[in-house]
C-alpha cells in the first residue's frame, strides 16, 4: 500500500514538467484509482490526500476528499478533533466557492455530527432540490428528520435514498426506520441485507453488525446478538461499540466479569457516559463497591467537563443520573434542553423517565405516550411507561407494559431488569 503513496508523492515532484498534471489524475479516476484507494486504510488515505492537497492546494476536490476521510477517522475514533479538521477544510472550500457541491454535501454530514439537526434538514432539502438523484442528500435529510421526530417525512426521504441506490448505507437506514416503526423482524432482515451488500470500509460493515446485534438484543435474542458483535470485531478490530455490545450481551447472560472486561475495552477507546453507568452497575453486581464508586465519579466528571465547555444537552448523562436516582433535577434539565433541538422518541423516553424520577407523574405520562407512539420494541420504553402508569394508579396498564418489556428481553439491563421483574411480581398479586 505505501507504494501507491509514493506514486502520488512522486507525481508531485514531476508535476513541474507536465503542463496539466492534475487533469491527468482525473483521466483514470474510476476503476484503478477508486480501487487502489479503496484498499488503503483510513490513515493511509489521510496521508495520501494530505500530500495531494499540499501539492495542489487550490484543487478543492482533494480538499473535500481529505475532509471526508477525516470524518471517517472521527467515526472510527470518536475523536472530535478530526471533525474540526474536516470542518475547517469544508469551511475554507465554501468560503472560496460557495456552490462547491462536494463540500456542501460534507457540510450536512458535519452538522449532523454536531447535532444541528434543524440546520441539516434545511441544508439537505436545498441539496435534494438541486440534485434529486443523489442518494446522499436523502440520507442526511432522513437522518435529521428522524432526530427531529418527523418520522413520516424521514421515511419518505429514506425511501428515496434506497430507491435510488440500494446499498449498505440505504439498507442500514431502512432497517433502523423499520425498528423504530415497530417492525423488528423486518429490521433484522434488512440489516442482514446491508451487511451482505458490504462496503470497502470495514468500519461501515462493523457498524451494521453492531446495529444487527442491538436489534437482536432488544428482542431477546441474546446469543445471536453476541455473534453479531463478534462479527463486528472481526470486521473492524477494536471497534468500541462492538465491545460495549458484547458487554451488554454478557451482562444479560449473567457473565458479569466478562461484561466488565468488554465495557472496559469500550471505555478505554471512547469513555462515553453510558459505559461508565453500565460499569457502575456491573461492579456493584460483582461486589466491588470501590470500583463502582469510581465509575460513578466518572459520570460526574463527564458532567463537569460538559458544563465547563458550555454543553448542557446530553440525554445519556440524564439517564445515568435517573437510573441511579441522583442529581435528578440536573437530569431533567439536561433532557429538557436537549428537547430544544431533538424531538425523537428517545428524547421523549428520557423526558418521561426523568420526569417520573422527579415525581412529575402527569407530565411523565404525556412524555411516555410520545415515546410509545410508534410501538418501537425498546424494552426500556415499556419499563419506564409501566412505572409511570403504576405511579398514576393504573395497575393493569402497568402490568401490560412490564410484561411487554420482559417479553422483549427479560435481561435488558443489569440494574433495571431485576427491578422490572420485582415490580411485575408485586403488581401481579
Amino acid at each position: 500500500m505505501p507504494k501507491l503513496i509514493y506514486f502520488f508523492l512522486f507525481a508531485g515532484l514531476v508535476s513541474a514538467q507536465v503542463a496539466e498534471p492534475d487533469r491527468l489524475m482525473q483521466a483514470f479516476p474510476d476503476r484503478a484509482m477508486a480501487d487502489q484507494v479503496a484498499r488503503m486504510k483510513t490513515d493511509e488515505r489521510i496521508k495520501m490526500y494530505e500530500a495531494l492537497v499540499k501539492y495542489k492546494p487550490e484543487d478543492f476536490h482533494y480538499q473535500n476528499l481529505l475532509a471526508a476521510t477525516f470524518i471517517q477517522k472521527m467515526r472510527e475514533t470518536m475523536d472530535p478533533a478530526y471533525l474540526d479538521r474536516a470542518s475547517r477544510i469544508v469551511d475554507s472550500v465554501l468560503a472560496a466557492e460557495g456552490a462547491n457541491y462536494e463540500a456542501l454535501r460534507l457540510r450536512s454530514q458535519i452538522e449532523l455530527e454536531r447535532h444541528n439537526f434543524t440546520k441539516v434538514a434545511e441544508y439537505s432539502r436545498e441539496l435534494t432540490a438541486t440534485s434529486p438523484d443523489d442518494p446522499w442528500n436523502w440520507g442526511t435529510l432522513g437522518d435529521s428528520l428522524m432526530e427531529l421526530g418527523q418520522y413520516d417525512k424521514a421515511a419518505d426521504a429514506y425511501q428515496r435514498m434506497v430507491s435510488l441506490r440500494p446499498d449498505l448505507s440505504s439498507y442500514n437506514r431502512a432497517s433502523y426506520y423499520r425498528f423504530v416503526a415497530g417492525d423488528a423482524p423486518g429490521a433484522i432482515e434488512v440489516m442482514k441485507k446491508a451487511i451482505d451488500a458490504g462496503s470497502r470500509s470495514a468500519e461501515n460493515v462493523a457498524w451494521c453488525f453492531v446495529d444487527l446485534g442491538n436489534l437482536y438484543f432488544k428482542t431477546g435474542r441474546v446469543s445471536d446478538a453476541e455473534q453479531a458483535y463478534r462479527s463486528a470485531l472481526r470486521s473492524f478490530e477494536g471497534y468500541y461499540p462492538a465491545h460495549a455490545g458484547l458487554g451488554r450481551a454478557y451482562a444479560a447472560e449473567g457473565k458479569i466479569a466478562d461484561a466488565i472486561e468488554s465495557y472496559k475495552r469500550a471505555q478505554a477507546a471512547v469513555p462515553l457516559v453510558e459505559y461508565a453507568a453500565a460499569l457502575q452497575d456491573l461492579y456493584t453486581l460483582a461486589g466491588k463497591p470501590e470500583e463502582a464508586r469510581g465509575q460513578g465519579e466518572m459520570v460526574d466528571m463527564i458532567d463537569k467537563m460538559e458544563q465547563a465547555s458550555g454543553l448542557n444537552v446530553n440525554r445519556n448523562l440524564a439517564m445515568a443520573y435517573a437510573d441511579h436516582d441522583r442529581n435528578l433535577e440536573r437530569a431533567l434539565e439536561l433532557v429538557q434542553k436537549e428537547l430544544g433541538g431533538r424531538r425523537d422518541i428517545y428524547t421523549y423516553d428520557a423526558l418521561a423517565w426523568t420526569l417520573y424520577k422527579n415525581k412529575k407523574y402527569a407530565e411523565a405520562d404525556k412524555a411516555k405516550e410520545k415515546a410509545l407512539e410508534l410501538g418501537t420494541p425498546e424494552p426500556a420504553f415499556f419499563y419506564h411507561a409501566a412505572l409511570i402508569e403504576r405511579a398514576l394508579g393504573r395497575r393493569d396498564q402497568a402490568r401490560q407494559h412490564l410484561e411487554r418489556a420482559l417479553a422483549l428481553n427479560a435481561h435488558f439491563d443489569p440494574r433495571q431488569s431485576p427491578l422490572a421483574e420485582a415490580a411485575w411480581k408485586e403488581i401481579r398479586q
Partner: protein
Amino acid sequence: MRTFALRAAAASLLLVSGAFAASHRNGPLLLEDQTANLNDFYIFRSWETGHTNSVVMSMSVQGFQNPDNGPSYYKFSSSVLYRFNINNSRGLDGNPDMQIDFVFQDLLRPNPTFVSYFGPIMTIDDPSIFLYETYTVVIRNLQTGTIVAAYNQDVNGHALSVAPPNLGPVGTPNYETNLGQPSIFTLPNGMRVFAGPRDDAFYFDSGATFDHLDFRPPAPVLAGAADTGQGAAYPNAVDGFAGYNISLIAVEVPINMLTANGSIPTSSTDPNATIGAWAATLRQQVTVRPSPSDPLYFGEYVQVDRVGNPLTVELLIPLPMKDYWNRSDPSGDQQFASLIADPFFVSGILSGVFKLNVPPAPRNDLLGVFVPDITRINLTTPGIPNAQQSRLGPLGGDNAGWPFGGRRPGDDVVDIGLRAAAGVLVSGFDVAPNNELGDGVNSNDIPLLDRFPFHAPPHAGFLHSQENGTNGRGTPTGQ
C-alpha cells in the same frame, strides 16, 4: 491505581467533550460498493474443442482481491442480481432482447471454527466448505416477456455451486483439478456456467498511469519507442493487477440461443451475425415503512452498476456523472454522445499535454464503439487459441478481439483504447506515434486458459504474491 486510571480516563475525556458524549446514530454515508462493483465484461467465441459454436460471456466483480484474505474470503452477494444482457435486434439499439441472471444463495454449514473454509478441501462437495454458496440461473426472453428457464441444478442434478477460494497447497491441493474445473456445470439446455474466484485477466501499468502516464523505460508510449511487442516485451513495466483475484461469473451459450432467428450465421453481413452485450448488477429496493398487510420487505431490482466496453467510464464519462451513468441503460446512451464524441482525455491530455495530432471532434469512430455502450461481436469470426491471438485484436489484424470481435481475456484493452482514442480508426491517423501507444504491459501476469472459463485459476492465498516482491510475475497458481 484507581486514581491513575481515572486520571487517564479524564485525559481521554478531553478528547470526547461535547456532543460526542451523547452520540446519535451516525449511519455510514460512504457510497462505496463492493459486492456489486463490476470490473470487466468479456464476450468471445469459444475456441475450446467441442465448443467452438458457442459464445462465452463473463463478468468480473470485486477487483483487487487479496488471495490471502482469510478467514472469510470473498463471496458473491446474495442480495445482488448479476445480469448478462444480450441485444440481437433492431440494429443493436442497446435494449436487451435476452437476459441471463445469476442469483446467489449462502448456506452456512455447521462450523467448528471461525474460518469459512477449513481444509483440506478435496472436492466441491467437501463439508469443510463451511460457507457453501450456490446459485440459480434465470434466462429471460425480453421479446416475449417470458422466463425461458430457471436452473439451480446441472444436467446431473448437482447444485450449481460456487468454486471455493484457493487457500494453498495444504488447504486446497490441486486446486484447478479438484475444485476449479469441477465447478463448471452443464445446464439441461446445453449452456455451461462457472462462478468463483479467478485471476484478474486485466493487465495495466496502473502505477505508471497514476504517475501522469509516466510509463517505465524502455516502455514506449508517449516517450518514444513503439509498443509493438507481444508478451512481456517491456520487463520494467509493472502490471498493477498482477497477483490479484477477482470473482468471475461465466456462461457459455450455444450461438443459436443468442441470435434473433435462432440460427448460426455464416455470412458476416447477415444482420443476425452481430450481437451486442453488457453486464449489470442490480440490488433490491426495500420498503422503508413496515406494512402489516404486505409482509414482503424487498421490492423491485435497481441497477447499481453496468459495464459494456472496457474503459468507458474511465476515459469517457466525467466522474460526477458516474452514478447517473451506472443507473442508466445503454439504450439511453445517446445522452452521453456529446461527451464521448469529444472526450477530455483526447483533447485535454493526448492532444493538450502530449501534443499528439488527433482527429477533430465529433469523434464518430468512438461513438460507433461506445454509443450505446455494449460490446459488439461478429459471431461468424471463429475464436483462436491464446497463443495465436494478437493482443491488439483488430488493430493487430486479429478480428476476433476488442472492439469489433467481442472482448477476450487476453485483449490488451489499454493499448487498444489508447490508440483508438488517438484516432487510429480514423483515416489518416493510423500513424506513429498514435498507433504505437501503450503502457508497456503486454500480457497478463499468468497464462490464460484455452478452455472454459478461460480466466486463469485464482492465485493461492499461501503464495500470496503481493507480499513476496515478485508482484505476481512467475508465481505459479493452480496450487
